[in-house]
């Protein structure tokens, strides 16, 4: 989880992120951050995400659950 929060902070270009933060609330949020999340999930967690799934995840916590949920399939 620590790693994931650091990775997300880097993508969102902030010092740190909280689990409850909404994805769209970040200043950096756009199609490039979405692609960066897709690439991160592929590189580090070996799962494929779509734009729609990321949008549905809504928060940092939701995104973490989405990734770990897919890993356990």
């Amino acid at each position, binding site marked *: 989880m620590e790693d994931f929060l650091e990775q997300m902070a880097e993508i969102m270009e902030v010092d740190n992120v909280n689990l409850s933060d909404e994805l769209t609330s970040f200043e*950096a949020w*756009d*199609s490039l951050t979405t*692609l*960066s999340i897709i690439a991160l999930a592929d590189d580090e967690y070996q799962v*494929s995400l779509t*734009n729609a799934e990321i*949008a549905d995840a809504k928060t940092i916590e939701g995104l973490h659950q989405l990734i770990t949920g897919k890993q356990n399939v």
Partner: protein
Amino acid sequence: MKIKFSNKKISGILSILPANEVMFEDEMHNYSFSEAKSLKLKAAMGFKSKRIVADDSTTGYDLTVAGLDYLFDNDLLDKNSIDAILFVSQSPEYIMPPTSNLIHGKYELDEKVFCMDVNQGCAGFVVGLQQAFMLLNNEGINKVVLCNADVLSPKVSKFDRNSNPLIGDAAAITIVENTSDDTSVVGEIRMDGSGAMALNVPAGGARLPITAETSELYEDSFGNKRSKNHLVMQGDNVFNFVQTKVPEQIKNIVENTNDSSETIYYFLFHQPNRFMLQKLADKIGVGREKLPSNVVENFGNSSGVTIPVVTTHNLGEQLENTEMKVCFSGFGVGLTWGTIIMKIGNLDFCKLIYK
């Protein structure tokens, strides 16, 4: 479909790029994003300049003909030696007739010269090579002129930050021949039609003709504006497909032929953007220097023509003077992904020209 041929070779490659150059910054203010965000995208994707036709009246056929004129004028190709013409494109001159027949007519080629258009995009060079090799197995066919041409910039919205920064136009002519030398060509092409609409132009075909309604701009959830006459791409699905299927395919071909990717000098891939190609190199486990990714920043992504462009731009002189084993791989619209591993070199020409 597996690809396995012997006694075939490529004897020349010519890329034709529009002389008109457009810089990323020239168009950045069309996008509904801050300058800072657009510059961040530029850095991540490797956008810089691209070559697109100066106006919509220049077509893929025009670029192809400029290339053929160059080859005939410089005695690099003998008109009478051509047995077949393949024209691979997603931007043909007309719905009918085939563009390859127009080329046949322009140069007054013999009636026995076979012509065929192939509708393929990002994998168009690999599919075109495969078709050329198959034709060469017919008696009396010894030289195939493979034309790849894509002028898709008029089909992309200037207000679409997803596609407009990366799109480029180009054509290429590749000469494919039979040879008595004991050569080996191996590879595979796969398709997944369930993803056919991941890259598409909704209007302009029989299903949805162009009307005033299809020409209206709409805005997507990321703030990009395009109409139904424009190319639309599901970037997320394309990214996932490429990162999964392409490394798998290359691994399988290498293993099935008891080869090793160490023996491959260069990985000459379709050029979607630098970001995707660097990730691909890492995933396949080859050094990024062996998988050139500099086409989008210099010329743009010209769909089925990017493999000839990456080859002529990076290895032009080298391939005129030496021979090496390379891996060609094209992937995208269809969904189609195809890979060919073969030796190439001592070419009659391996050049890039501007029109």
